[in-house]
């Protein structure tokens, strides 16, 4: 069998599973016995898709006239989101979700959106992938909080408009929407203010999608109001989709970094410091996790400021860690997000989930020796190589505040005595075999990411190289 024919199988599997789940839920196909095994089956589909991606995704190929490209960048990003989707489906507390079929389908569709953006060969596919991921997030939020979903939809619409204006102007300037061709044209062009303004808009649009401070005003409240899975989608997968788009755009714009790097530098700095400070200031565990995620996505943006291969590879490497931790973290937390007391004694009552939650918090804060630490240090090395020591210092400041915030949550989880349910405010996640396995797998991924970071970072390097960076 020609392996090239299997490259799009993961996408097909993910979409087919999502469609079956949505139709099945709508038409009442699933009986109660079937429903019990649906999460495991859906997680298995995501795992199979991941396996196929890792096996067949190494072959380089182009589809739909260059609209989709399978390269190392796509392989890395797709593998990361499929892993995040598989774990989040396994670890979710389904008693805390509003709809089983939609709850199972939306993470798959969001992952599909990221996959489309990751393998996008032109601006249209890039934008479409992002919108698809964001739409899945809106659907999840709307199940519990239609008001917040509307807010997310409107702000997302504004973000989309800003992005489209920027991309349209870019297209008009270079005369092509093909990313590789655009880069070649920009090599012979000069940076102009006329190009900087639309890029300013496009970056702002992406910042809204990625919930980067100070553009987090819709994303984070929506994440706080949604179900645990919905929060993971908005804070993790949608932000990851925006980051993927940003990395691909940054690779295109490397010939003219002056038109965007100053603005991106400010955004990254504000996100890193603001995220850490806000995480320190808030009390709710979910809010704390949301701001930790916002701070770490700031590091991803910081890697793009260096506008060379090491920086983009560092961002991609960190993005993998971020996608898993930010998507699965709220799901691991489950309903125990009402306030500080909700997590009290979780370490004794739900040890696997507690360990997962602790590792997610610490990884998003950049604590050693977890995935986030290695990602942030790799980005830090790239920033040092490119001479951005001020940004590096601000990033470290943000990480230190994040670390202090994460330690506060760890104290709740492990050092406070369990409270009765009435005083807890929210019940702890229901204990199931699948969720325990998912939590253990999540812990393993977060802990092993750093120790196995050489092949992972090597793949990220190849990913950056695939974007045309040398």
């Amino acid at each position, binding site marked *: 069998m020609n392996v090239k024919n299997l490259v799009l199988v993961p996408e097909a599997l993910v979409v087919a599973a999502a469609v079956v789940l949505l139709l099945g839920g709508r038409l009442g196909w699933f009986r109660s016995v079937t429903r019990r095994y649906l999460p495991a089956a859906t997680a298995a589909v995501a795992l199979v898709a991941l396996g196929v991606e890792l096996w067949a995704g190494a072959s380089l190929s182009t589809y739909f006239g260059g609209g989709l490209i399978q390269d190392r960048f796509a392989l890395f990003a797709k593998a990361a989101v499929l892993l995040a989707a598989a774990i989040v489906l396994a670890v979710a507390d389904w008693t805390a979700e509003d709809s089983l079929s939609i709850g199972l389908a939306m993470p798959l569709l969001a992952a599909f959106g990221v996959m489309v953006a990751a393998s996008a060969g032109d601006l249209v596919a890039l934008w479409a992938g992002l919108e698809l991921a964001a739409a899945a997030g809106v659907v999840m939020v709307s199940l519990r909080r239609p008001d917040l979903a509307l807010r997310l939809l409107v702000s997302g619409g504004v973000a989309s408009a800003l992005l489209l204006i920027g991309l349209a102007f870019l297209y008009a300037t270079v005369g092509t929407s093909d990313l590789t061709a655009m880069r070649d044209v920009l090599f012979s062009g000069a940076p102009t203010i006329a190009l900087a303004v639309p890029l300013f808009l496009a970056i702002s649009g992406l910042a809204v999608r990625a919930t980067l401070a100070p553009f987090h005003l819709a994303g984070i409240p929506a994440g706080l109001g949604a179900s645990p899975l919905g929060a993971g989608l908005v804070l993790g997968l949608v932000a990851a989709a925006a980051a993927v788009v940003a990395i691909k755009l940054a690779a295109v714009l490397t010939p003219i970094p002056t038109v965007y790097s100053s603005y991106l530098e400010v955004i990254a700095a504000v996100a890193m410091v603001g995220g850490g400070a806000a995480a320190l200031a808030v009390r709710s565990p979910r809010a704390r996790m949301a701001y930790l995620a916002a701070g770490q996505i700031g590091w991803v943006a910081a890697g793009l400021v260096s506008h060379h291969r090491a920086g983009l590879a560092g961002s991609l490497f960190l993005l993998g860690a971020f996608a898993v931790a930010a998507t699965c973290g709220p799901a691991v937390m489950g309903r125990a997000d009402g306030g500080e007391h909700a997590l009290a004694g979780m370490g004794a009552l739900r040890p696997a989930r507690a360990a997962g939650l602790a590792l997610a918090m610490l990884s998003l804060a950049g604590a050693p020796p977890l995935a986030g630490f290695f990602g942030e240090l790799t980005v830090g*090395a790239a920033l040092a190589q490119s001479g951005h020591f001020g940004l590096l210092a601000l990033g470290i400041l943000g990480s230190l505040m994040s670390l202090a915030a994460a330690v506060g949550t760890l104290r709740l989880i492990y050092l406070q005595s369990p409270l009765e349910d009435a005083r807890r405010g929210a019940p702890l996640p229901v204990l199931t075999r699948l969720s325990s396995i998912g939590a253990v797998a999540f812990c393993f991924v977060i802990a092993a990411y750093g120790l196995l970071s050489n092949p992972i970072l090597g793949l990220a390097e190849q990913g950056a190289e695939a974007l045309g960076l040398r």
Partner: protein
Amino acid sequence: MILLTIAAASPTPAPTVPGAGIFTSPLLLSLLVWVPVAAAIAIAVLPNPRGRYDVLMKQIGFFTNLGLVFILFIAYNQFEAFLPTAQYEEKVPWLQAIGASYHLGVDGPGMVMLILSGLIGIISVLASLGVRERVRSYFCLLLLTQSAINGAIVARDMFVLILFWSAAVVPIAILILGWGGPRRRAAAWRLVGYWGLGTGALVIGTMTLYAAAGGSTFDMDVLLKAAISPRIQVAIALAMVVAAATRLPLFPFHGWARDVYAESPIGVNVVVAGSAARLGAYLLLRTVVAAEPAAAHLLSPLLAALAALTVGYAALAALRTVDVRQMGAYLSMIPGGITMLGLAALTPLAIAGSVLSLFTGGMAAALIVGACATLSDRAQSRSLQVLSGLAPRMPILAWLLTIAGLAVLGVPLLGTFLAELLTFFGSFKNQPIGAFAVAAGLVVAAVALASVFRRVLFGSPNPDAPGVSDASLGETWYLSLLAGALLWIGLFPSGPKLPGTDTPLFDQGLVNVMAAGISDIASPYTGATPTPAP
């Protein structure tokens, strides 16, 4: 004779010692780093319904540390004294894209730190035997802390160093938050804040060094020997000074010390004061004194000033405080100031003194904070206005506290004496003002100690004070081990010998071991050494 041996550090064949050659492992240092992690994981996953196996958890912690000390004993006795290069090296490519490798190795000063960490590890477990709540979590975190400290000592790659240096912050902060005194929250946040600042400075310094050296590797062998302009050397050195000053601690970066030492559980106190804090001076030795001679020369007055201010401030604060644990906290800063004076002097003798004071200072600091904490526990009061006339009622603790105070001051027969002697002899020429200021600070500290001892230990008993009891067996053991180690180094700095021979009984001598590497570190500064008269 000893002084000249250390100063010259001439390569002489080391006599065979017991333990040498009986066991070799290419993973010796990795064992020291990862065995505590494995034990911590074992403790974490072991079922412990209603604390039924709490004793087993403590035993795992104790025997893990005992095993580590055994491995260290072998490493120590197989160590090639006077060999300037790193030994027991392990190097595995890791993050090749950014040039980070899993590179471990240890030279003389590193071996001194490892011995310190090993002893402190076992002593901290003994000091923690009284822990009753959440025993599993406590010992798990204690072992992780020890692993991080060992990792930072043996790291030969700056990336690995950052990893382990920063990894110690989280478990120590949680230990304080979970098992500390009434003001534990403030103590933990101060620790996170100050040590976080130090970690940030270390990362910035390292990244600057990495970028200045071409951005291709984090390996210390390359990075610390790279030709870098003096201006960048100074910037890097300043970052490293901040990192070291927050950890050691040095004035004005000492804000965490009072609260942490006063509020932490005793076992954590011992680890922090004994080995974790010494990493600051060790970092400075490695990255500034050994690697950036131009910056070291330029910043040496600053370092001497920091040393003098630290000792002076600590002594005055100890004189004024009315809390016995805070007094211990302030006094524990003094050995760090002396180590820093040695590093500021930049002479081979002073550097040798500062390396020796890494060990003796760590032991003395752990002893004074441990003794003060145990005294306050046993006397049921921390107030120096309440405690009085305790010596007849707690003779063991009174003796140990007295030895602790004398160790901080550096009186003869104790290891700190030798370290201070080397430091002062080596620094009076290059940093006379700093040396005199530090000496004056020691005099003030002596006054503070004398006045406290006179009242608290030997004054007339206070009838209104709560009841007191002497140290328990576990407390006696951990404090005696600290005092014994200081006495051992004070009496046998070159190790005990068979009578009439140069054959070591079982210890080739800490000063011989530490000499390996010092000659290399001190080589840029040999011109400043006064030549001994023929």
